[in-house]
């Protein structure tokens, strides 16, 4: 990817506009878990953006699926996420408690749409200044990652 200075300037300018358009209040707890006001609302609201409209969760954790998801997570996600502290992106220990499963699935599978449209994600970008890349995970693997994240939520 080659960026000219001009492109960078344009990107910076666009980011500045974004700052004006979306007003975010954020609170970071000591563990790097970030909660934003729009996110709290989003947890209750129906999913607005992204291709995954509904995810069926089982009452108990599917251990096999979670194990598989852990493996995908290690290869694909650990470059930017840790469980209990902020890294390139947010800590993910309790992500399933603060985000809908559909939101998590769409962040993995339909990253570009979420970054472009979802207010919560726009706010996250202001904090982390790094767009989450689409890692070309397929839907099955993304579902396994979600199960893994559910599994670790209470295992600290």
């Amino acid at each position: 990817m080659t960026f000219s200075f001009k492109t960078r300037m344009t990107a910076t300018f666009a980011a500045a506009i974004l700052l004006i358009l979306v007003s975010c209040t954020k609170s970071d707890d000591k563990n790097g878990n970030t909660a934003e006001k729009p996110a709290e609302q989003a947890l209750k609201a129906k999913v607005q953006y992204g291709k995954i409209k509904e995810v069926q969760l089982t009452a108990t954790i599917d251990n096999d699926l979670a194990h598989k998801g852990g493996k995908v997570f290690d290869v694909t996600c650990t470059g930017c996420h840790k469980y209990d502290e902020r890294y390139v992106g947010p800590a993910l220990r309790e992500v399933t408690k603060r985000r809908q499963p559909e939101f998590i699935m769409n962040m993995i599978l339909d990253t570009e749409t979420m970054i472009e449209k979802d207010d919560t994600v726009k706010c996250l970008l202001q904090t982390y200044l790094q767009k989450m890349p689409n890692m070309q995970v397929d839907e099955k693997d993304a579902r396994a990652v979600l199960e893994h994240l559910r599994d670790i939520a209470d295992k600290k």
Partner: protein
Amino acid sequence: MKSKLFAVIIGASIVSIALFITACPSTKQASVGDSDAAAKVYVAPGKQDEFYAFMSGGFSGQIGVYGLPSGRLLRVIPVFSQDPEKGWGYSEETKPMLNTSGGFVPWDDTHHLQLSQTDGVPDGRWIFVNGNNTPRIARIDLRTFRTVETMEIPNTAGNHASPFITSNTEYTVAATRFSEPYQFENTDVAIADFKDKFKGAFTFVKVDKTSGSMNIAFQILMPGFNYDLSHAGKGKSEGWFFFTCYNSEQANTMLEVNASQKDKDYIAAVNWKKAEEYLAQGKGRDVKASYMHNVYDESTHSAHSEILNTLKTLNPAECPGLVYFIPTPKSPHGCDVDPSGEFIVGGGKLSTVIPVFSYTNIQKAIAEKNFEGDLYGIPVLNYKAALHGEVEKPGLGPLHTEFDGKGNAYTSFFVSSEVVKWGLADCKVIDRTPTYYSVGHLVIPGGDSKKPWGKYLVAMNKITKDRYLPTGPELSQSAQLYDISGEKMKLLLDFPTIGEPHYAQAIPAELVKDKSLKAFKLKDNHHPYVTLGEKEARVERKGNEVHVYMTAIRSHFKPDNIEGVKMGDVVYFHVTNLEQDWDVPHGFAVRGAENAELLIMPGETSTLKWVPKKSGVHAMYCTDFCSALHQEMQGYVRVSPAGSKVELSANANGSKQ
């Protein structure tokens, strides 16, 4: 100030005079013509070209990929060359691609390109290119635009008539330009013994239908002439291959004069289906040879080399019907077969006519044994019997002919610096247009296949002179785009190219672009030093070798603090790009590296070998702008004096992450 004002007034008056003049109808017409040409090559920002054009990079050893009609340079593909931009030939994984039986040869002279074909039509799977100097053929995968295989050609010096292919890419061929003593005979001979000891060879390299993998099927042992260019038969002439030759005088000095004595040289017509029959009958003779085969494996992101030691040969004197010579005036270069396969055009550099042979007549002459004699046991056909017609007074120095699929041929003329359009049926000149300057080869999209797409012709000129802003004694190369959709050819555009483009291929973009790979899948990465996730990132010592299992993702390396390297160590940075998104390569550079940077595609692993020359702390960083925090993508490696007690570690001593 005063003089400036004066200049402005003068300038303004010139403009108003010019405005007045442009009111005349004749001038207006000319300006409409210019804007028409501009509109025809204008590809608006964000829009894409209609054709890919692949042009040999000549003595750069590379291929230039351009868009047509814009002439925009899209990519340079290193083939027989190292390319610091991409780390090609510098990374440990790609170095073997440049191995030959004579060692590491990181340069060559690429001349001719051939797109793979299915049923005589370019299919956009692979492109083949020859290495002229250290004879090789390379295959480039058009999913990745990377060289994936090279095959060295034995008994060949100057692999010129190559890598022309058959209609279903059954074979790509090689032929020696400089005859030489065969490797399997005594090679230490006096040059004066040329006529006795120097021989030629046509090599048929089999291409696997599915994988594209090459292996030398057989070599035909030919008389010691200079073999120049070739093309496969197609349609009617399917199963045949045609090669031009010059220096049938067999001169070994001052060829300029001594190889221009005879009025006619030859086109060798080879029946390769017959060769297959002879091989099946066991007529092939195994001889000793030594040639290198290099293959790049996409799953390990690594190339390996293998030396091969045997070769199957066929002797035409013992295989009747395998090869015939067709007399061709004079020192012919191009050997071009029209889309129907009926006409074979010889481009006699010193000839005053363009001879057009008829496949039907050639077959008739063979059946009737209408021969004027034989050479080294190879029958020589009667010139007139094989001929369809001659294009008379076409121009000076005909070289190469392409076809538009509408019954027209276009021949380049080096000496008279022009392209001449003529009719295949009647051999009559239809149009001629100048080139700037001294055109070598031509390309029409699909112009040497069964199905030319026509529309454009690109002339690749040998001389540039005043066409562009001067850049010192060395100038860019000059290509010119012509509209050939009408009766008359029309010059649309000049655009510069790299190296010296000898030959090119062009193909509609949709046959290539939709297959283009966006990223290598991490889960398919079987590199022995892959780092699948940051958890695996680490450093390991094996004696004095230090292996760094490093990951790269926007925007950090892991590990990014390395200590315990000592003077005398050899450090291998095995960098895995964890990205899986399109257009997110990461670069890797470390101070003092004597090779080049790495440029690692998403999902790929590449290795930089680094032998520190100074102790101290050395910076390393990402060289390819990857994100807003690209400038933060950096790290340090500490090199301690030899014998130091510092333990090898990665991100130890409290350095975060």
